[in-house]
């Protein structure tokens, strides 16, 4: 049994947020991979762009950041230069600036540092699951998937527990800015340009900025100078320091990206367990599975559906010419279902190895900073969940986020029996 089968007719408008309401329109991406792997894609909200849908092409292009630049925006939407400057994070920069900023925070998110959080994560998972599983029917996105990344981010950034729900709400408003369930300022339906200089073009960006400034002032007053946020305020090797605007945008990035991506990986994994009952059996009986299970769940989820680059020179590919200044979109969601890269891509195979999925933007310098944390959180959550579950099944239809950018199940009603 497959976990979920795409229902689009193979000719969906892949730029439209509404095309993702039933999940990623994978029949359309399968057709593009087969027939038109470098597809000139019309876009009603702005300039048309090239869609790259094959796994091998995404990897090859992502490894050439000098030709396919991040420094003119990384989303489908067009930005003026002024908007770009005001809203950019180090995600939207190229070498050498990119690495200079990234190095300031990379250590705090590196494998060995994150490994030190294992016990803290396990304890949080136990708390969250013991509460969630005290009833037999619940929304697993809300009571499990949403909880862990939020509380863990709070620990890492040293934020007070009582602030966390507010922060997550604002993070959702930023990144799920095309879903009316998460924001009153739906991006493609907005009639005002008032927030165009704010992170993610959202008023939540302004509120988070004020929060970040207050937080740092409080920490400074209390003499607290450790943690990730202080680390990025330190001068770099060349003596340069981060500007207020960069700090604001980085904080928003952490709150937004640090929350919903891992949340939707967990949700997709739980949804898979509802439809492939053998997954729970494997998790319960085969300890070797944990070496590979987390990455397979993250491949299956692909929370970041795409990222965009901009060509800096003309490039010939598949008999076509990408012109300098053309937008190019790497569809990670498509690459992760590419039959040429994965056997049975529409099946969750917890022992899949090798698993060269693209969920973290692998193959380029912008590979996810939080990937070690995400992998560890996903692995431990499912280890602890499997320990406690006798069975799990869907208790109703699940609902996807309205977004061409964030792939996620926002409502996931499940029915469980404890073991």
């Amino acid at each position, binding site marked *: 049994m497959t976990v979920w089968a795409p229902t689009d007719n193979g000719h969906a408008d892949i730029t439209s947020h509404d095309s993702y309401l039933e999940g990623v329109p994978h029949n359309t991406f399968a057709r593009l991979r087969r027939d038109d792997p470098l597809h000139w894609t019309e876009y009603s909200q702005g300039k048309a762009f090239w869609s790259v849908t094959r796994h091998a092409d995404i990897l090859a292009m992502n490894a050439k950041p000098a030709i396919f630049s991040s420094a003119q925006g990384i989303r489908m939407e067009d930005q003026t230069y002024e908007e770009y400057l005001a809203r950019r994070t180090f995600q939207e920069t190229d070498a050498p600036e990119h*690495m200079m900023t990234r190095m300031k925070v990379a250590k705090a998110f*590196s494998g060995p540092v994150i490994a030190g959080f294992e016990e803290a994560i396990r304890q949080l998972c136990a708390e969250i699951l013991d509460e969630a599983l005290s009833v037999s029917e619940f929304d697993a996105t809300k009571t499990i998937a949403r909880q862990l990344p939020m509380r863990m981010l709070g620990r890492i950034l040293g934020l007070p527990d009582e602030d966390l729900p507010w922060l997550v709400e604002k993070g959702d408003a930023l990144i799920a800015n095309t879903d009316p369930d998460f924001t009153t300022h739906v991006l493609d339906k907005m009639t005002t340009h008032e927030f165009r200089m704010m992170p993610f073009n959202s008023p939540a960006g302004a509120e988070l900025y004020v929060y970040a400034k207050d937080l740092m002032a409080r920490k400074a007053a209390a003499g607290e100078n450790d943690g990730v946020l202080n680390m990025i305020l330190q001068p770099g090797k060349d003596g340069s320091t981060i500007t207020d605007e960069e700090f604001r945008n980085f904080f928003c990035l952490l709150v937004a990206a640090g929350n919903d991506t891992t949340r939707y990986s967990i949700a997709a994994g739980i949804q898979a367990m509802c439809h492939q009952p053998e997954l729970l059996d494997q998790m319960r009986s085969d300890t070797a599975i944990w070496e590979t299970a987390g990455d397979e769940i993250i491949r299956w989820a692909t929370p970041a559906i795409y990222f965009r680059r901009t060509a800096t020179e003309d490039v010939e590919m598949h008999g076509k010419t990408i012109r300098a200044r053309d937008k190019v979109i790497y569809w990670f969601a498509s690459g992760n279902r590419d039959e040429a890269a994965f056997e049975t891509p529409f099946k969750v195979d917890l022992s899949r190895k090798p698993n*060269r999925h693209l969920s973290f933007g692998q*193959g*380029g310098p912008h*590979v996810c900073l939080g990937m070690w944390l995400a992998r560890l959180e996903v692995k431990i959550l499912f280890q602890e969940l499997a320990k406690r579950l006798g069975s799990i099944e869907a208790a109703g239809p699940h609902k996807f986020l309205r977004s061409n950018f964030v792939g996620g199940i926002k409502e996931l009603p499940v029915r469980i029996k404890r073991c």
Partner: protein
Amino acid sequence: MKVTWKIADGTSISAEVATGVSLMEAAIANNVPRITGDCGGNLACATCHVFVDPDWVDKVGPPDGMEDGMLDMTEVGRAQHSRLSCQIIASEDLDGLVLHVPV
């Protein structure tokens, strides 16, 4: 050139690698375990970490500044002969090279 990756379980993988190819790319092409090269050789991830065999350290040479910084972020921690294999490029000088893959 010929390269051999020695793996912690006592096995090894040997392959011919064309001049100019990085040893991270070669490791992936030959399914060497634990080397994933997540950033595509852009010095952003430290997932192609290897220990150069002591006999080859002089020929391979030391890491440069940026690589040196990234070596502090490897999963198993750095050791005396740590290098990121995306920064070691195959050449005839290195024919016979032996690399040890971290556990």
